[in-house]
């Protein structure tokens, strides 16, 4: 048994090794180390001078958020190809180096480092889940790499003092705030019930809603939080039904969102009373035809009014390629290369510090919607949201919806960073 | 003062009484045999005395001190140890490691009396190994030994601890006839070194080894005395010996 080598022996030989008695061993170890080092050593980071402009795209290609990561890739690739076909940026092609963070914060940090060190990317962009984004945020701020966040709504990504991180999606506490404003308008003095999963994003939305609800004269009649891994909500749905609310705000992690929706509908809550703070295409397919009439928040939907031709074109081409209409996730990821293009052209050179400055002063536009893209001193964007009403769902192919509300507000309309730590 | 004194031992399993007011004393240097049909409570008795099982009532003294409720390792430290009906050695470890583990906790070593280190009651572990003919098997995994070798190893591991009393639960169980002969000889030599408590079905073992015999029937002690007397006792013959080949 190997375990029988006693420590006294090891200590003795360690001493003898230091004294040079076992020189061959030491030499062997050091030369092995040097060989390994030679294999791994690379020249220190040089600014990217020629070849494609590399940007690190760190996203979820495996693990529970696989779908979001892959949807994002689909949108991003489309735009990237278009840009390169049209001549690239600053006369060079744009390349997104995609790495898989496995929906794990630890892996996201490792992947960021890989992109930073081995690919020497000029900027990072990436994940679609909040905790991986927060882990990357720490890395980007520490290593001073510009970091553009396409789809992660957690407010702390743009907390005061943030310098290198810029977020495209409005922050989640704001969504909660505007839901209260919206319901106040639709039915003054409404009674509202909340059902949500114990997850970072949901907590931020709820915090914003609870802040604004008394100011909008809304009453919260029921407030149910489910631990992660819940699978049934019938009892809570019955309790919510018994509290007789005018509206139920529903947001669950993954499939549990749909479980809550269906169980509320089973118990006789009308679709018109149901409000989801956000809805993407697969979610809508899950809700199905029986949910027609319900309301969901969005930042891009093929049912939006007044979409410019570029937006309609994007929807058509995405649908043709992927068999489903895009939602805001794909839209933000589609816009990401264009936002990079605008910022890089503003910076004029491929340099991290210059690119950061360009982001902070850019006045760009989303190519699909024409909405302005500019960031405040913390990297947050002007807040906005649409509320859509679901009209009909056609199997797993498409659905119809109409825009019923649009609102824009300043990020500091509510004390976001006091509400969410 | 007796070496072991058991008073009014009671143990129930559910509704079944396994031991009913069992009284027993044992003097130092004595070899006591315990016999009785299957299910009469012999192993339960050993389990309780050796600390594996709690009693429902009764007290136990070992060398004049109470051992009621003591755990097996505390008893081992005082010199009371046991073997099992199904042989039990560390089958994944080598014979040498088995013996080493057993001598880790030798009584005198723990008590701090370094003088006897490496010796088990006058004999070194090596001498014991030679005596038990294990000295050439040291490197083998204990699990690969024959049953008889394992029985001898078991014995050596107990002796390495310098016990004052060894409780043997069927020491010749499963052995071939020649091996039984040998085992009895070994145990007879052992009698000089420490007290033995032997559970056996094989009457030969009891006749040749025991100074005194106790008979358990359905949890009750029905006889206690010299082997010749007890084995001739009418009740014992009718209820027990009649059923086994003596």
């Amino acid at each position: 048994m190997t375990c029988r080598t006693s420590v006294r022996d090891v200590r003795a030989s360690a001493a003898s090794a230091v004294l040079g008695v076992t020189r061959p061993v030491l030499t062997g170890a050091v030369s092995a180390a040097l060989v390994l080092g030679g294999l791994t050593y690379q020249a220190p980071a040089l600014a990217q001078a020629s070849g494609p402009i590399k940007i690190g795209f760190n996203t979820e290609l495996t693990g529970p958020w696989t779908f979001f990561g892959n949807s994002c890739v689909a949108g991003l690739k489309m735009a990237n190809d278009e840009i390169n076909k049209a001549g690239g940026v600053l006369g060079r092609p744009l390349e997104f180096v995609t790495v898989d963070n496995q929906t794990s914060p630890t892996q996201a940090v490792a992947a960021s480092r890989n992109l930073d060190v081995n690919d020497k990317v000029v900027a990072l962009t990436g994940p679609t889940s909040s905790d991986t984004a927060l882990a990357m945020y720490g890395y980007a701020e520490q290593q001073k790499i510009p970091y553009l966040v396409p789809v992660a709504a957690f407010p702390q990504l743009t907390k005061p003092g943030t310098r290198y991180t810029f977020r495209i999606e409005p922050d989640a506490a704001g969504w909660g705030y505007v839901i209260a404003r919206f319901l106040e308008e639709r039915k003054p003095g409404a009674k509202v019930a909340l059902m949500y999963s114990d997850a970072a994003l949901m907590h931020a939305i709820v915090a914003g809603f609870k802040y604004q609800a008394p100011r909008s004269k809304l009453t919260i009649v029921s407030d149910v939080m489910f631990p992660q891994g819940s699978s049934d909500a019938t009892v809570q749905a019955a309790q919510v039904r018994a509290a007789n609310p005018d509206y139920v705000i529903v947001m669950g992690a993954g499939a549990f969102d749909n479980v809550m929706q269906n169980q509320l509908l089973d118990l006789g809550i009308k679709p018109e009373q149901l409000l989801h703070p956000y809805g993407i295409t697969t979610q809508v397919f899950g809700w199905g035809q029986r949910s027609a009439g319900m309301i969901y928040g969005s930042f891009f939907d093929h049912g939006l009014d007044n979409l410019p031709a570029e937006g309609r074109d994007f929807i058509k081409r995405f649908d043709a390629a992927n068999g489903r209409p895009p939602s805001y996730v794909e839209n933000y990821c589609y816009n990401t290369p264009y936002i990079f293009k605008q910022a890089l052209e503003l910076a004029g050179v491929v340099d991290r510090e210059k690119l950061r400055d360009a982001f902070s002063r850019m006045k760009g536009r989303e190519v699909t919607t024409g909405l302005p893209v500019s960031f405040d001193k913390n990297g947050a964007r002007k807040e906005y949201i649409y509320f859509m009403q679901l009209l009909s769902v056609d199997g797993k192919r498409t659905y119809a919806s109409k825009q019923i509300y649009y609102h824009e507000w300043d990020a500091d309309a509510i004390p976001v960073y006091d509400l969410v730590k | 003062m007796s070496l072991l004194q058991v008073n009014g031992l009671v143990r129930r399993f559910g509704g079944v009484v396994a031991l009913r007011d069992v009284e027993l004393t044992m003097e130092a240097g004595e070899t006591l045999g315990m016999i009785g049909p299957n299910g009469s409570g012999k192993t339960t008795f050993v389990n309780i005395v050796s600390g594996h099982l709690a009693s429902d009532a009764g007290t136990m003294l070992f060398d004049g001190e109470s051992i009621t409720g003591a755990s097996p390792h505390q008893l081992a430290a005082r010199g009371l140890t046991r073997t099992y009906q199904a042989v039990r050695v560390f089958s994944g470890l080598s014979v040498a490691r088995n013996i080493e583990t057993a001598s880790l906790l030798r009584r005198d070593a723990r008590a701090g009396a370094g003088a006897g280190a490496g010796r088990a009651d006058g004999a070194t572990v090596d001498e014991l190994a030679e005596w038990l003919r294990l000295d050439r098997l040291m490197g083998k995994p204990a699990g690969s030994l024959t049953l008889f070798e394992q029985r001898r190893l078991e014995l050596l591991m107990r002796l390495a601890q310098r016990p004052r009393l060894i409780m043997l639960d069927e020491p010749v169980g499963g052995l071939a006839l020649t091996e039984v002969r040998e085992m009895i000889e070994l145990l007879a030599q052992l009698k000089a070194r420490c007290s033995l408590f032997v559970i056996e079905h094989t009457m030969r073992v009891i006749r040749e080894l025991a100074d005194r015999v106790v008979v358990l029937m359905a949890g009750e002690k029905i006889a206690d005395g010299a082997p010749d007397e007890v084995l001739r006792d009418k009740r014992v013959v009718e209820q027990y010996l009649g059923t086994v080949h003596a």
Partner: protein
Amino acid sequence: MSARRWAVALGLLALALPFVLEGNRFLAFVYSIVMIHLIWANGMNLLYGYVGLMPLMFAGVAGVAAYAMIYLTRSHEWSFWLAAPMASLGASLFGVLLGLPSLRLTGFYFTLCSLVIQTVITLAFVFFPTFTNGDTGINQIAPPQAPWGGALSGVWMDETLAIVAVLSVLLCGWIVSTRLGKRFMAIREDDVLAEVLGIDVVRDRIIAFFIVSMFASIGGCLFAVTIGFISPRSFDVLTSLNIWLFVAFGGRGTLIGPIIGTIVLAPIPYLLQELQGFKDVLSGVLIIVVTLLMPGGVWGELLRWRDRRRARRALAVGQT
């Protein structure tokens, strides 16, 4: 070369690698992650390989230590070098508490019990956000202070991890060679027999849980400052299972086995990121093949082959 010289060479190599990998901060990072897992695997091996209990709440204990360390450094402005040992000590006492079921349960029952405990801990991390910030996690965890002022980072942080990892191997080897280690192995082989031979099984199991929780805790604190971000998912049952897998794959109850397991399996998800789902398939196939061909783990099986060959040779010599 003798086994001892090999051990010294490996130790020196482990200590030298951070300087070698300095040129590539990504590989250096992967190396430091492997070192942390090595600390963990050694702890797991002590309990699983030598005492014979498979604790799936291992990561939970590491998490408790990490959160406690962060709380002490953030809210009480303690230095990492004071906070980490204190947090580890506290978490280890907690680990002893979680180990108490082992006094009644052994084998697979204890494993399942620890699985339930780990599930409760993970839920508690999410549900009681005072110390953990819930599902959101804690980001921008400051690196430890360097003795020469400033933050300990880069190659010196990696070197610190390598030193702790090498120490953990040495410590493990030392514990195993002591009377305590021999008692552990006796308990692993047969706890009832160990008790009859005078081993206080209850006390020794408690000691084992304390030592092992210390390994888990120190690894947890170092993990937090190395990654800079932790959330409840950093310390969930999958983390425990992974560490256990390293030990079982390499060979439980040997000093070398867990090192092999960690070095082979731990870097896969980092170095093969481009392979996406294939990398899971690859490591799964690797695990299955090794289990079927080497049920005692890589090193355990190599030792067995060696022993068998020696026995055959001895037999051959005996016959001639």
